[in-house]
Every structure is written in structure tokens, then in C-alpha cells.
């Protein structure tokens, strides 16, 4: 995956590490201070990533929708405290649950937005190279997963062929849900058969042998990768510091 922004040129492993450090800090507490601080810093940093605006809004749409919905759940069913504003069945909207809901809203945004920006700019091939060369994960599994990911491109073609074949056989005209389920199953069968063939082909080329593996593409860890990790860790640390120093820290455990 390529693009104009600097975020495209950062090693995927660095993006994963940055997202891990940031999420780990934010997930330990539910309070509005840590999330608001992190979100503010992220909004300052995200434009520097160089993700095109259209891509950004399209890919983060799910986060913008999910955040308020999660918050509503917490507002209705969060632990009640303080004044109770409304009550029906199990739902109880109170001072405490509204505060939790606001914190949750900010928290979902603060965790989700940077992750989307970091992850949708990851090229799976670069990620596989990084995971096996830098993190030394078992290369048979990493490359097997990458091979399967590359099959995704064929799924769309297969899906169209299956639809045409079904139409030609006259079995595609009724029962939309049933047809979709049947066709999805056929696609799975097709891809498993292709997986079997792919495995044979890979074995024929020596994949999975115990010989020493060399790499066509070197995955390198550069200065900008350190910068990426430091940014992630710094935002998390500042958020935690702000939350602890204002006495808002509200651990998720206990």
C-alpha cells in the first residue's frame, strides 16, 4: 500500500508497537481526563501522518458511529451513582453513569482513531516481513497467513463467477438470504480447494523445509520507526500522568 504521507513509510512493526503502547495506557483507566488529553494530542499529531482526508473520514466512519453508541449503553446501564434522572426496567441514567459514558465516548475515539490511521496504511507484505524478520515470529505461519491474505483479491472474481454460474443454472432467482449463504459456502469450498493446491505448490518450491531461509525484501528498523514508537508511548504517558495528577484515575480492575 503506498501513499504520499510519512505514515506509509513507517515500519508496520513500529505502528503496531505504537498502537499497543497507546492502547495499553488508555485501556487501564476509564476517566475523561486521560481520554481527553490523549485525544487532543492525537488530533494534533494525526494531520502530520499525511493520510488523505477522504481516506481518513471513510475509514474512521465506523469509529465515529460506534463511539456514541457505546456511550449510550454505558449511560443506560453503567453503575449508577449520584442523582438518578431516568429509570425504566434495568436502565438507570444517573450522574455516575453519564460521567462514565462521556469517558467511554472519548476513550473509544482515543483508542480507535489512531489505530485506524496506523493500521489501514499497513501493507500486509511489509507487515509479514517485519513480523518474521524483526520480531522473529515463526516464518512458516507468517508467510502462510500472507499467502492466504493474497487470495482475498481472487475472492471478488470467484464471487462473480459463482453468481453467474448459479444464474445460468437457474438457482439464483429466489430466497436472497438462502442464496447468499449458499454462495458464501461455495466460496469457502473454492478457497479451501485453492488453499490445498497452493500448499502443494509451496511445498514443491521448498516452503516448510528446514533449510535456512533468506528474504527477498529486507525489513529495516529506521530512525522514523523509533519516532513512531516514542510518539505512541509519549501520548499514553502524558494521558496517564494527567489523569493521575488530577486524581481522576479510575482503574478498570477492582
Amino acid at each position, binding site marked *: 500500500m503506498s501513499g504520499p504521507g510519512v505514515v506509509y513509510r513507517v515500519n508496520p512493526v513500529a505502528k503496531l508497537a505504537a498502537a499497543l503502547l497507546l492502547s495499553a495506557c488508555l485501556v487501564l483507566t476509564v476517566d475523561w481526563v486521560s481520554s481527553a488529553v490523549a485525544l487532543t494530542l492525537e488530533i494534533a499529531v494525526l494531520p502530520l501522518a499525511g493520510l488523505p482526508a477522504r481516506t481518513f473520514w471513510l475509514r474512521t466512519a465506523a469509529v465515529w458511529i460506534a463511539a456514541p453508541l457505546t456511550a449510550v449503553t454505558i449511560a443506560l446501564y453503567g453503575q449508577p451513582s449520584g442523582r438518578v434522572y431516568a429509570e425504566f426496567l434495568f436502565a438507570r441514567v444517573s450522574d455516575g453513569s453519564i460521567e462514565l459514558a462521556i469517558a467511554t465516548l472519548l476513550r473509544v475515539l482515543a483508542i480507535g482513531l489512531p489505530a485506524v490511521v496506523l493500521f489501514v496504511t499497513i501493507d500486509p507484505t511489509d507487515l509479514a516481513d517485519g513480523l518474521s524478520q524483526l520480531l522473529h515470529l515463526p516464518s512458516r505461519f507468517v508467510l502462510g497467513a500472507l499467502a*492466504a491474505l493474497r487470495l482475498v483479491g481472487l475472492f471478488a472474481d470467484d464471487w462473480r463467477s459463482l453468481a453467474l454460474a448459479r444464474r445460468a443454472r437457474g438457482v439464483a432467482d429466489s430466497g436472497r438470504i438462502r442464496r447468499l449463504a449458499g454462495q458464501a459456502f461455495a466460496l469457502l469450498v473454492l478457497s479451501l480447494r485453492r488453499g490445498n493446491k497452493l500448499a502443494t505448490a509451496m511445498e514443491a518450491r521448498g516452503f516448510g523445509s528446514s533449510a535456512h531461509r533468506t528474504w527477498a525484501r529486507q525489513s529495516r528498523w529506521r530512525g522514523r520507526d523509533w519516532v513512531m514508537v516514542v510518539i505512541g508511548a509519549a501520548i499514553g504517558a502524558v494521558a496517564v500522568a494527567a489523569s493521575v495528577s488530577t486524581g481522576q484515575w479510575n482503574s478498570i480492575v477492582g
Partner: protein
Amino acid sequence: MKPVPFHNERARTVTTTSITPTPSTTRSRFRWRVVDIVVASVVGVASGLLFVVWNIASTPVTDPLKALLPGLQALGGGFWLFAGVLTALIVRKPGAALYGELLAAVVSALVGNQWGFLTLLSGLTQGLGAELVFALFLYLNWRFGVAILAGAGAGLAMAITDLTVWYPGSDAPFITIYTIAGVVGGALIAGLLSWLAVRGLAKTGALSRFAAGREIAQRV
């Protein structure tokens, strides 16, 4: 290996693919062959694509459940749990449930969703939930009951993760309902549906290089 008679196209496929030489028969049955890795990966990636659809579709589908009884939405969580059980039931190797669920979570995260890096945490814990059940049976039993239990295990793991990370500070009724719904949804969707899917797949002959496929093929 007993050859399957040439009754029809389906049977022919079973025979031709099942005589494909497997590199070694002396290795432990716990060792992953290349075909195990590739097919587990295909299942994981395909499940991940389904996760992506469910990431979007789950909100309108499970919100009415949530309105009916808070916590009941965890029933629908089962559609995020089947990857591990399905992968394990097909390749029958230690770590298969964990690998399948984690890979599906990676696909879901790479496409981009609201859970960010924590998608991988969920994939890890849900995969472990199913994996532990298969491990309890020493990776020897792949029958219906164990599949259901593995789905329930994944559901329990999902409930624990979600309640800790996403719904901290919920009250006791919510926690109870969410956990029960997660376990039931996991058992039904991840357990039962995966088991049925493997039976269906085996009957097509697509699993002829796996014990899971040969068992059913012989029964036909």
C-alpha cells in the same frame, strides 16, 4: 488409506486429492504440515472478512437485543468467535484455535475498526478460550460436544475481556446477563455452526487431506 469408490464427481475428487503424498508420516501428529498452515490461514482470513461484515452489521442487529435486555447483545458476539473453533475442527492441531482466531482478528484490525489494537487482544483471548477446551481433551476429541464446549469457552473469554476492557463499572445484572449471553452465543454460533460447517465442507471433499475430511468421507 482406503480408496473411495468412483461413484460420482464428488467421490472422484476425494480419491485424487487424498493420494497426494504427505511429506512424512513419521512426524508427530501434533506437527503442522504446510497444508495445515495454508488451509488454517485461508479459513482464518475468510473468517476475518466475515468479521469485517459483522463489525458493521452487528450494531443494527444486536441493538434491539440490547434494548430488550442489556447484555443480551453478547449473543451476537458469537459471530466473532467461530474462526478459532472452525480452524481447529478442520486442521486438528495444537494452537489452531488460537491461530485462526488471531489471524481473523488481524484481518479485522487491518481493514480498520473501532477497537483498534484491542481487536488483537480480543482475538488472542477468544482464541485461547477455545484452545484451552481442545487442550483439556488433549487434542484427541474433535466431536460435537467438544466443539460446543470450545465455542462456550470462547464466549466466556469474550465476556471476560469485553467486561474488563469495554464495560468496566457495569452493574451486577449487566455482568451476569452479558456473560451468560456470551457463553450461549459462543456455544450456538461458534460451536454448533462451526461443527455443521465442517461436516458440510468435508462432504464436498475439500478437506480430503485432513482427518476431519476423511472421517466423514468414509461414512458417506
